[in-house]
């Protein structure tokens, strides 16, 4: 498989250690293998895009990085994922603590049915934040480019905002607990083009402080926002299930201009998917 070669290339070009590293990760749902043998390194303060057709396991892999798959009773992860050198699936690791360091933004904006203020304060409070709450909320909203739009209505329900604002509120909420990595699972798929543009600009700002992994169906988006791109594909088994796998992982320019794999070439040029 070429996967390993490209991963090694990526690690050679970057001298620093990867923040997240997946080694031969398999994910099962029940007895069905959903994604097989994914290995890749994620470097600090970069944006990594996961692209690929539906059912190729890109979201599944994303959810392994903060152990959200633990919430699905039948899901099982094999292989090794390390976060700053430590195995996150080791028995003594508390997924709750891990998730406060690896934040997540979801496909559909999911603000809590609380005020804008409380939406952000919730995460800070449960993680034992002892500083000035008002200041933290202002900072988080500013970082999420939402402060100017909501500063006069912090007591209003987060659900009263528009879709794009809701998604930025969710980003602010994730930032407020000071994570190192932010996982974004198709964060713009429910948004209009203007809101999408705002989020993309925001991602460029955020990567100065955070490492971002973004799953996207939109190849233009991947080429616009990311430094590295991982292309996943799926193969059908005899009994009709799909098994996803990582085809190629390289810097975004290579993936879009001169990919090594035929499948990548066909996907990025729009011939399938």
């Amino acid at each position, binding site marked *: 498989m070429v996967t390993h070669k490209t991963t090694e290339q990526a690690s050679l070009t970057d001298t620093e250690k990867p923040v997240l590293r997946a080694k031969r990760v398999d994910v099962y749902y029940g007895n069905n293998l959903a994604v097989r043998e994914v290995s890749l390194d994620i470097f600090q303060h970069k944006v990594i895009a996961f692209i690929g057709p539906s059912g190729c396991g890109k979201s599944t892999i994303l959810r392994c990085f903060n152990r959200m798959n633990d919430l699905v*009773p039948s899901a099982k992860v094999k292989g090794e994922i390390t976060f700053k050198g430590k195995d996150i699936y080791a028995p003594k690791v508390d997924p709750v603590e891990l998730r*406060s360091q690896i934040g997540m933004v*979801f496909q559909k904006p*999911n*603000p*809590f*049915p*609380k005020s804008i203020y409380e939406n952000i304060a919730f*995460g800070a409070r*449960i993680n034992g934040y002892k500083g000035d709450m008002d200041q933290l909320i202002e900072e988080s909203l500013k970082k999420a480019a939402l402060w100017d739009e909501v500063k006069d209505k912090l007591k209003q329900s987060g659900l009263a905002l528009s879709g794009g604002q809701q998604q930025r509120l969710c980003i602010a909420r994730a930032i407020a607990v000071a994570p190192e990595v932010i996982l974004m699972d198709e964060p713009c798929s429910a948004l209009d083009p203007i809101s999408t543009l705002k989020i993309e600009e925001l991602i460029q700002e955020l990567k100065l402080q955070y490492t971002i992994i973004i799953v996207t169906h939109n190849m233009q988006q991947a080429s616009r926002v990311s430094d590295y791109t991982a292309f996943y594909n799926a193969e059908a088994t005899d009994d009709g299930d799909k098994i996803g796998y990582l085809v190629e992982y390289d810097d975004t320019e290579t993936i879009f201009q001169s990919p090594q794999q035929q499948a990548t070439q066909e996907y990025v040029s729009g011939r399938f998917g």
Partner: protein
Amino acid sequence: MTLDQSNKKVSLWQPNRPKSKLIELIIKIIFGSFAFVSIATTMGIVLTLIFNTVDFFKEVSFLHYLTDTKWTPLFSSANFGIFVLISATVLSSVIAIVVALPLGLLSAICLSEYATERTRKILKPILEILAGVPTVVYGYFALLFLTPLLRLPMPEWVQNIIPAWDQFIPGLQGFNSLSAGIVLGIMIMPLVASLSEDAIYAVPQSLRDGAYALGATKREVIISVVLPAALSGIVSSLILAISRAIGETMIVALAAGQNPRLGLNPFVPVMTMTAFIVQVSLGDTPAGSIAYKTIYAVGMTLFLITLVLNIFSFWFVRRFREKYD
């Protein structure tokens, strides 16, 4: 009819449009009249209540009804202080809610958040079966099992230390609103549990995911996110349960007694509004007498109380329901 159907063979395709239109009309009338019957019945009941209640208030002043402290409509020196009956109803219903709210809500949380999907599918129908137990069974359960249990004499050594502690609950009489209220609570608990569980289960998974992704523990997710999001459903289930408790008859008639008594002492026999209606309905009160009209006034009062509760519940749900699409 103006459509060109000439290309179809006339002998094979003969739709009878006038006939199908007529059938549609007849069906509409039949369904409409059945719907009308149920509405008319309800209207009839409400009108009967209103007319008899108006008759009642021609003989008894409204002020007297609300302020008197005695309820003796069957005596020659009749007194009509409805608050005597209301106090008993409120007392037994409050005890019922105190029992049903924690039991029901905690089982709802357990079923929807902690139980596996399989366990939930097995346990929830079992819980709902509890709601199908005839209330008369609950009634004699309260009278013949719970009350004797609460009146068990304390062992001698306890009585030696505290002489007044003669039975498990001192001062509890054979008929009392405590047993009736507790059993009433057990009766409405499945209602609270089942409806609250529906509300909690309906909270979108995406909200839970959002909270988990911030590093929340399960307890934090439930208390800070799931329960507030399900609040309107929980409150409406609670109000429905209160309405049931207020209107419930057999348990209180059997276990709480027949003594109209103003006050909130749960250890002594009392008479609820429903128990009074049973007493008069079963007795040989002549139709048209003032005692006979009393049951309509009491019925009307009961109806108004539950109506207000339902309106409040309706308003609350509309006001606090969160819409997720």
